[in-house]
């Protein structure tokens, strides 16, 4: 009896872990099967088919991006403080050296990401630490006053959201909204703390088509500060991938346009431009006019090389030339601090009429991406 019990115990101790353990074998090979049997099927569940927000081989979507931006030196030419017509012929002749660099940290998180609806929420901080060398200029009050205000660094903190709503299998709507707090603020005193009333708001609505997996186009309207000051402009989106999937385009005109060359899915090169800019409030200046807005906009003509480091961690290196589009200053105090629309034909005068010479730049980023 005791021998039987002992045997039972030993057997149960051996058998228990064997039966209780998971029997997993990832290398399990299934039998060959006739796949033609899956040609003819019928639905049991029902879903509505929607178009995807992406096409083949677009550059990776960045969830988190940490980067740094450097420019080499260029010339900053400024007028005196005064009243100037909004055209380049009035640019002054006070010139000093200018360069800048700064951190760029941005995140874009999908809050809802379903086949029928995508909602992304993002935010970021972008700095331009300005160095203006105007020692040789003496004491021209207008120019040095503006230089002093800009030299306290320009910061942009933003919140943004993107909604993608597919309407059916091949058409969609995109709504983007952006709120920015821009200026030479530093939170060190009441005078240099930003005010929410000075925030800038942009929005873009696009209606688009996605005829197939390699093409996505759309048209829309945008309220934007990319040209430095408030503008209402039409936009055209054209994302395309060639049939051999080696090259394509990524265009959201006029904000950006790039030719894309794919060496392999983890190694791509973009060549093109992006128009970057916004309006920055200048706080605590020593100037006569107040409520000043620096209308900053620059065209970044560049090569942008992106490659996988490991897993979903990618590195990006941009190199190119910054071409100034706008660096003028408007005064809003006499307009109850309300922004205005000048457009391409408005004649509202400027307080400073400025220029920057083209300057080379480089931008390095580390990105957590989704392909």
């Amino acid at each position: 009896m005791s021998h039987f019990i002992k045997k039972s115990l030993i057997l149960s101790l051996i058998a228990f872990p064997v039966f209780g353990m998971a029997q997993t074998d990832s290398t399990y090979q299934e039998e060959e099967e006739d796949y033609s049997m899956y040609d003819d099927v019928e639905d049991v569940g029902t879903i509505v088919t929607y178009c995807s927000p992406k096409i083949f081989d677009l550059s990776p979507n960045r969830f988190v991006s940490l980067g740094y931006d450097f420019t080499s030196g260029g010339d900053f030419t400024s007028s005196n403080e005064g009243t100037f017509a909004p055209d380049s012929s009035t640019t002054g002749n006070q010139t000093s050296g200018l360069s800048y660099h700064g951190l760029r940290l941005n995140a874009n998180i999908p809050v809802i990401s379903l086949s029928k609806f995508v909602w992304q929420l993002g935010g970021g901080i972008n700095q331009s630490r300005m160095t203006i060398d105007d020692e040789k200029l003496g004491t021209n009050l207008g120019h040095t006053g503006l230089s002093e205000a800009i030299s306290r660094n320009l910061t942009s903190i933003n919140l943004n959201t993107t909604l993608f709503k597919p309407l059916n299998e091949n058409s969609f709507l995109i709504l983007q909204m952006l709120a920015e707090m821009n200026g030479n603020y530093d939170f060190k005193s009441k005078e240099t703390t930003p005010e929410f009333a000075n925030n800038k708001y942009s929005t873009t609505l696009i209606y688009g088509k996605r005829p197939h997996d390699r093409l996505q186009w759309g048209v829309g309207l945008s309220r934007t500060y990319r040209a430095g000051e408030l503008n209402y402009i039409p936009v055209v989106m054209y994302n395309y991938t060639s049939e051999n999937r080696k090259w394509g385009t990524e265009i959201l005109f006029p904000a950006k346009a790039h030719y894309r060359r794919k060496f392999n899915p983890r190694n791509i090169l973009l060549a093109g431009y992006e128009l970057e800019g916004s309006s920055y409030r200048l706080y605590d200046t020593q100037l006569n006019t107040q409520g000043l807005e620096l209308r900053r906009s620059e065209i970044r003509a560049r090569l942008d090389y992106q490659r996988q480091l490991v897993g979903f961690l990618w590195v990006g290196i941009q190199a190119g030339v910054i071409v100034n589009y706008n660096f003028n200053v408007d005064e809003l105090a006499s307009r109850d601090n309300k922004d205005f629309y000048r457009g391409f034909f408005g004649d509202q005068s400027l307080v400073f009429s400025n220029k920057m010479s083209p300057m080379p730049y480089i931008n390095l980023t580390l990105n957590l991406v989704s392909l």
Partner: protein
Amino acid sequence: MKQLITITTLLFLVFTISSFNSNYVAEEGDAIIGLWEPSSGKARVKISKIGNKYFGKIVWLREPIDPKTNKPKTDKNNPEESLRSVPLRGFRMLKDFVYSGDNEWTGGTIYDPESGSTYSSTINKDGDVLNIRGYVGIKALGRTDTWKRIQLKSKKK
């Protein structure tokens, strides 16, 4: 001797209860087994069980032939060069899912043949529809695709 009998009986009971419970969980988990079609309609995936885990392989492609080579499509975007010649039809794109109760399968991965990326993944079943979420690191950084159940015409569910 009494002690020995008690231990044996206890072990037998524990084994019986745990196997009854795991059988019950396994039956619930098996609800995912079958044929499914992603929202794009470009493929059909057969989910089956190996051991106590669930796997899904591509059994049908809307465009099975690569127009460039005129041969059956292969996994040409795979980051591992040696796997780029593996045919896509028959490829196991869902791996290692475990049923964790409440119509949810977790701990698996989903492979996207269009980018060659493998994402962490969870599956949630809602009737004859699967919500499959692929994500990077944390669930918040991901995207959910909806798959519908299909069946062979000659065979009832």
